[in-house]
């Protein structure tokens, strides 16, 4: 290759990028194919203009010499083969980021829908870049959510990604609203900026969140991105990326602590499956594409803390498990990437317990480094472990009781049943606006454990028992 050619290429590209093509070769679902064009880049922004002059955004999914396959985010209805015009922008989709995005509501592609002006700011590639693992700071700052089941047993720390695995009809909406209202770092008494990405959720659900943010005063520190249930499904592929780009800007450039809520990830994955099927790719499980894991990781991994920078991104994605099945590909692959999961349980919810956070399958992987002396309290780790162990035993005994009847149980098993009830009704259960401090949560944990005799508490040390047991 001559040096002249290499100098020439960018200049020629500038001219080519302004070219507009009339006519497309094929339309199939949300995908259009073009031929006879210049060589365009992979994964770059495309403008598709229909007969009425409306501009729709899209992205190249596949490029080859003189041809491209484009997914159109805003749907292909009304497009004609002959009259559709196409422009290639020669750059990936970008979102303008500035502090002014706070307090605003945007559509799924990052355009304002609250009647305000377009935000002015530095355009940033929505795909982001992977954080270098050596640049990460390990998350260990305890976040108090005021919810005992989370703070006590599945502690959230700053920079963690902790999803909520819900089911249809379960109150994840209330839980998310409560967390985003109450979450704070106790030692700094600081709250969070909230970036909210709604994908395929209903209008009333979106309104519920916005109203909640407004009522609690959180709205002025919130940016909301909505791709609602009636928006074209492909748009959802972009929504979380736009939201995370804003979150990254607020965290790394503005030094803010950001809580990102993405709901509902199942809708996102379905949009991905739709595109994949349309392109006749080889499916893996349940028709989802083989790259679902990598794709989800490209979202979930955009969280954490970077060394020597003041801000952080904490993620709380929400997903509904189809048919309450935790082994469905969406919760399953999510669970492999996220640092734990908060699982909501239908049985608890039906018994009127809020929040219905399942005792055993819920887990926070980063808990161990965020709790203990100086962070929460010295007995926290052992107390949580003991609660888990005792509650696991309750589940066994309940199963046994359903076979042989409660009367036949040994006396010690009866105390376990009592503990189980106390745990669910006093510890797990709390009201929607109840904000418990970590001390209250831990003391409550000891209170429900006091139902059991001291010999049963293997996982607590002598000193801890002396200090807290039946006090």
């Amino acid at each position: 290759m001559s040096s002249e050619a290499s100098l020439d290429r960018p200049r020629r590209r500038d001219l080519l990028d302004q070219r507009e093509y009339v006519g497309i070769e094929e339309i199939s679902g949300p995908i259009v194919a073009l031929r006879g064009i210049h060589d365009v880049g992979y994964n770059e922004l495309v403008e598709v203009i229909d007969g009425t002059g409306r501009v729709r955004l899209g992205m190249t999914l596949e490029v080859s010499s003189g041809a491209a396959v484009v997914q159109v985010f805003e749907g292909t209805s009304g497009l004609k083969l002959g009259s559709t015009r196409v422009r290639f922008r020669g750059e990936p989709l970008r979102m303008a980021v500035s502090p002014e995005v706070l307090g605003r509501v945007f559509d799924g592609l990052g355009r304002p829908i609250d009647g305000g002006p377009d935000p002015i700011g530095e355009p940033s590639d929505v795909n982001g870049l992977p954080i270098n693992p050596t640049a990460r700071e390990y998350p260990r700052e305890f976040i108090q959510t005021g919810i005992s089941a989370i703070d006590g047993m599945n502690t959230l720390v700053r920079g963690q990604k902790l999803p909520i695995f819900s089911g249809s009809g379960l109150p994840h909406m209330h839980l998310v609203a409560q967390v985003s209202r109450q979450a704070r770092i106790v030692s700094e008494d600081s709250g969070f900026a909230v970036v909210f990405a709604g994908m395929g959720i209903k209008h009333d659900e979106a309104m519920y969140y916005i109203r909640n943010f407004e009522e609690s005063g959180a709205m002025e520190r919130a940016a909301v991105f909505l791709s609602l249930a009636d928006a074209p499904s492909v748009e959802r592929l972009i929504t979380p990326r736009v939201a995370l780009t804003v979150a990254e800007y607020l965290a790394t450039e503005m030094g803010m602590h950001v809580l990102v809520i993405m709901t509902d990830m199942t809708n996102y994955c379905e949009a991905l499956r739709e595109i994949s099927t349309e392109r006749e790719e080889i499916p893996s499980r349940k028709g989802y594409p083989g790259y679902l894991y990598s794709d989800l990781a490209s979202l979930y991994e955009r969280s954490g803390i970077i060394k020597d920078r003041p801000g952080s991104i904490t993620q709380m994605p929400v997903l509904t498990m189809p048919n309450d099945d935790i082994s469905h590909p969406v919760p399953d692959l999510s669970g492999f990437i996220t640092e734990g999961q908060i699982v909501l349980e239908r049985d608890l919810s039906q018994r009127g317990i809020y929040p219905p956070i399942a005792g055993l399958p819920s887990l926070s992987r980063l808990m161990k480094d965020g709790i203990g002396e100086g962070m929460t309290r010295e007995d926290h780790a052992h107390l949580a472990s003991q609660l888990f162990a005792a509650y696991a035993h309750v589940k066994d005994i309940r199963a046994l009781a359903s076979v042989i009847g409660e009367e036949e149980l040994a006396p010690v098993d009866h105390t376990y049943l009592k503990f189980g009830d106390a745990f669910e009704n006093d510890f797990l259960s709390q009201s929607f606006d109840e904000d418990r401090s970590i001390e209250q949560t831990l003391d409550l944990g000891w209170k429900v454990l006091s139902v059991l005799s001291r010999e049963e508490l293997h996982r607590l040390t002598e000193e801890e028992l002396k200090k807290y047991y039946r006090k």
Partner: protein
Amino acid sequence: MAERVIGKVGRVVGPVVEAREVAGVEMLEMVFVGDERLVGEVVRIRGDAAWIQVYEDTTGLRPGTPVYGKGEPLSVELGPGLLGGIYDGVQRPLDVLRAQSGDFISKGIHVTALDRERRWEFEPVAEAGSEVFPGQIIGHVRETELIEHRIMVPPRMGGTLMDIAPPGEYALEDVIGRLKGDGGERELKLYQKWPVRVGRPYKTRRPHTVPLITGQRVLDTLFPVARGGVVVVPGGFGTGKTMVQHALAKWCDADLVVYIGCGERGNEMTEVLLDFPRLIDPRTGRYLMERTILIANTSNMPVAAREASIYTGITLAEYYRDMGYHVAVMADSTSRWAEALRELSGRLEEMPADEGFPAYLPTRLAEFYERAGAVETLSGADGSITTIGAVSPPGGDFSEPVTQHTKRFVRAFWALDKQLANARHYPSVSWLASYSEYTDDVTEWWDETTNGEWKDLRSSIISIMQREARLERVVKLVGADVLPDSQRLILETANIFKNAFLQQNAFDEVDAFCVAEKQYRMLKIIVRFYDLALEAIKKGGTLVGLKKLGVMRDIMQMKFEYANEDAGKLEELEKKLEESINEFGSIFG
């Protein structure tokens, strides 16, 4: 072959690029794609087209841009400076990348794997004029306090050592010797290169006789792995796979650890980076980082590099094995590697087999796991690679293709159990579903270390656990109350074994790691308890009475209260146990 243009980009589909008008390219040749010179590898050639998997994000890549061939296959650099390093899947040092491109990994950055500036103290051991063979050690470099780096004649090279550098400080590119062989004259440097997809040669395979002591009781006692063995650790999410892998990397008694974080979480690698430079290896008193190499290709880094990462890791391990070290390789997780393979295969439009995985998945798995083993190296030393691969079966279902195929090529299976993890019983290794075929290989070693008792103690406890599993089925139907005390003793012993022995607290200073002697003595106490208690019950004692003995609390706490150095003192606890049960029994006797 030098670098040259081999063709141009024709089509881009995610991480796969089809190059057109290609001439003179080799299969598996390393290439640079497009104006940004993204690193890639040729995976298929057909006519004048070549398919390339690209190790970096292809966003913005355009057809018509040139493809350069490097003239050699994807290779790693092997030399001093690897230890303590952290690399991505194609051996780019992440700390250097950070210094060059900031906190986020951008593309098209080219850095060398090893530091060219740093000077190393070289001590020759071969003499000028002598005949040397491939793999012969010709000198030493002290790489870390812990590891002496042995400079070897590269494999497939040999002849007369014309001259060798005197002791002194040398940088990697300095010539430290000249070799005259069949292929003419060659310069020797402190480092060599090796293609990642080809296993490094050795003289012969050796039988497995010595266990790799992991410090985890459930593994060493029930499901031991031999040095040179291969193990798979399958477990659904939340079962503690990564915790097991981290514990092994920290405490196993290998000389060296290569930890491959393959498609896993960024924060987990950060945790290792944070912990290992601070943690002290109990055997050597040195920092763990001095014996560790990290390969980190997190889940959001390019998928093709994830595919390459396990080969990069195992090649580094082979290099140290060739020096005569015992190396342990942790691959977390091979499922993510298999998924990368599936994704690339899909983009290449290959015909899929099970669940979309390519038909060659088992072949590739076998190739990877066969690179482990105990060997006699080319220089005649003993070396080994023990590979421990994690598998993440979707939905925790062990019947999926990756788990099933992997099982065919490994001889130990440490199944992680969701139920145990839910009750926070860690390590959540299931004693019913796991197995190890290395037990017979290492029995002799254990028996020598434990006065010939290990084998019998082990089979006693296994028989108790099996009887307990059968009894549990009865208990689930009618409750434990109806069983006679002799059978409830089995339940009780199993319970003690689970809580006091199998369960191990990775965050406790004393319990995190358990030496062989302590494991043996703890096991002996539990088996003794069963035998003595059974006798006492036969004489008329009750289980309730036995449980009230003060010594029981000591047994439950022994893992925390006896440090590894004090393992010998457990003998006193055993005596105390004997005395108190005998005393208890004598009331009835």
